[in-house]
């Protein structure tokens, strides 16, 4: 805590000026512009991925080259239309995506849309567990570190946060597996459910793919327990990585808000230290945190690919890894594009939330 009185580095936001404006329409305009911005973002990524992937040649040669005779290979290439000029293929591809068709995997012939619907639930479920862990662990600890800044708890927590960031999520997963599944033998090694429960899910009508919801719909207490039991290690592995980032983020932003004049003002009015931290400093710190969480979702998806591979958690990331192994680049490209859209939309949602919380963002 600095004893010197600082001149506020940033001029306080001019709130009164905004009051005159018609607030709802300002917000609507912001949302509209922000929503339209999704389109160029996705377009750029699609274009980039398309030309990058094509710059090495056609996907059929990549997948089957050397395994099929040359004439059959040519035949398949012609059938799939990969012998046409690149620009024609590109325009064609854009048209496909605009219609919501992301292509068909070469190795098992399933459409990307189908794959995403089948396995998206698993990835969503994992991401939610991980975010939950990250919030529960990262936010309170970050507040604690900011409050006890530069004392030993802060030092310990910061080193732990850096350690969480420095540990690759697949190594964390392997360590957790080694300790809890192999040595202590209390948690399952891999998978999303035991074989018995898995069979129940596979035979149920209209599964959501989110096993916890499916288990609740089955009304089977054992299945619910089994699903959660399987989710502990993957959720922890991915969640702790994110928790470290949250901790750092909350700490930095809280230090900033704790140094503001209104905190001193509140303290002089006799507001308790706990309330001071919980309400006065936390609320304003929340906005940058939410914005950065939007960026973390992209990181979370990347981490999901690795976590799912480590735990054989059959979600989108696991499938991408499978298709990579099979050199099925049509499927990889399709799924990467779908993930790009998911990321763009998520960022939009995060920005909307930030705008709803903080009026300053809208202008």
């Amino acid at each position, binding site marked *: 805590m*600095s*004893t*010197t009185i*600082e001149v*506020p*580095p940033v001029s306080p936001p001019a709130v009164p000026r905004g009051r005159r404006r018609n607030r709802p329409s300002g917000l609507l305009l912001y949302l509209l512009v922000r929503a339209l911005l999704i389109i*160029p*973002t996705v377009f*750029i*990524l699609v274009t*980039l991925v398309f030309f*990058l*992937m094509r710059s*090495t*040649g056609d996907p059929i040669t*990549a997948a089957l*080259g050397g395994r099929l005779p040359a004439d059959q290979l040519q035949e398949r290439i012609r059938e799939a239309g990969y012998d046409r000029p690149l620009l024609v293929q590109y325009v064609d591809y854009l048209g496909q995506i605009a219609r919501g068709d992301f292509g068909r995997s070469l190795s098992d012939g399933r459409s990307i849309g189908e794959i995403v619907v089948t396995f998206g639930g698993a990835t969503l479920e994992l991401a939610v567990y991980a975010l939950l862990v990250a919030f529960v662990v990262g936010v309170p600890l970050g507040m604690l570190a900011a409050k006890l800044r*530069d004392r030993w708890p802060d*030092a310990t927590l*910061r*080193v732990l946060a*850096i*350690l969480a*960031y*420095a*540990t*690759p999520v*697949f*190594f964390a997963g*392997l*360590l957790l*597996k*080694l300790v809890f*599944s*192999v*040595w202590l033998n209390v948690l399952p*090694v*891999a998978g999303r459910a035991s074989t018995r429960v898995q069979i129940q899910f596979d035979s149920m009508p209209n599964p959501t793919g989110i096993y916890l919801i499916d288990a609740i719909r089955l009304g089977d207490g054992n299945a619910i327990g089994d699903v959660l039991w399987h989710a502990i290690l993957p959720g922890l592995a991915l969640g702790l990585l994110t928790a470290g980032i949250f901790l750092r983020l909350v700490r*930095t932003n809280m*230090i*900033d808000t704790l140094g503001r004049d209104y905190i001193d003002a509140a303290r002089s009015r006799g507001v308790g230290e706990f309330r001071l931290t919980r309400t006065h400093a936390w609320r304003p710190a929340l906005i940058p945190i939410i914005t950065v969480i939007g960026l973390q979702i*992209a990181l979370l*998806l*990347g*981490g999901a*690919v*690795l976590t799912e*591979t*480590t735990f054989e958690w059959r979600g989108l990331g696991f499938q*991408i*890894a499978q298709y*990579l*192994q099979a050199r099925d*680049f049509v499927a*990889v490209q399709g799924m*990467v594009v779908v*993930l*790009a859209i998911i*990321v*763009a939309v998520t960022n939009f949602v995060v920005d909307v939330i930030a705008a709803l919380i903080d009026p300053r963002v809208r202008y």
Partner: protein
Amino acid sequence: MSAADPLAPPRVRGWKRLPVVRQLRQSVGLQRGMLVTGLVITGLFLLTALLAPFLAPYGYAQLQGADGRNFGAQVPPSAAHPLGTTVGGFDVLSRVIWGAQTALGAIVVAVLLSIVVGVLLGLVSGYFGGWLDRILVVVADAIYAFPTLLLAIVAAIVISGGQSSLGGGILAAAISITVVFIPQYLRVVRSEVVRVKSEAFVESARVIGSSSVRIMVRHVLRNSIRTLPLIITLNASEAILTLAGLGFLGFGIQPTKAAEWGYDLNKSVSDVAAGIWWTSVFPGVAIVLVVLGVTLVGESLNDLSDPRLRSRRRARRAAPAVATEPAP
């Protein structure tokens, strides 16, 4: 920020002004502890990487000892193999040590490439503005929001050319990491350039007829790269993680070409379920240590460059604390 310089500690000369050295002298207490720890770990990593041929008991692709007998697969730690052997019959210790070399190679190539390309693009984009600037910024933003690893996967597919063998694996991995980093450098340098180019000295240079290139290089660039050491350390740690992630997904470097920690971890997934711990723990710990060391350096530099986060000497030791406060 720019106004802080006149109030900065009295000008020191020579090596004391070098980026890391300056911060080391500036740091106190806990922050100095973190910075020193980071520097020590990073130094050990550099030494290991450079001295790998002398430190490692065996080669990274060696399967037999001097007596011509195979090491054997998944042998527990013993006198001959202090950290055991892998499922492929390699010596774990040797591969961990040689892996440092691969990691260092990837970091150096990745950081150099992304600095050269990123700084150049950022400089041009920020200085000239206009439609080129807008396009670059929009593209950079789109890439920036995209999962790093997925982009690296796409880049790895492109660079490995759809072939299964990865010749020049380090280069391939480094380039895929570079693709991800360029937008970050572009954004940082561009925003600095935009700020610097409206300063009076740039205006004066233009008035006396300096060429654009000269202004860009001499006046703008030099004043725009102060934050780079920080980003470099942060990106170096990300480079290791991305390299390991690619290796773990099977885009690694072939074991006969080089030792790579992510590849070894990939091969150890099935070992773990069987209780064989030494094949995964040691390469994993190596990654953690290196990233930890580099990140500690980066974090400390970040804290020291940000006056709000910098811890100051206690008032009783340095009484005129107010005088050294950066101006608003």
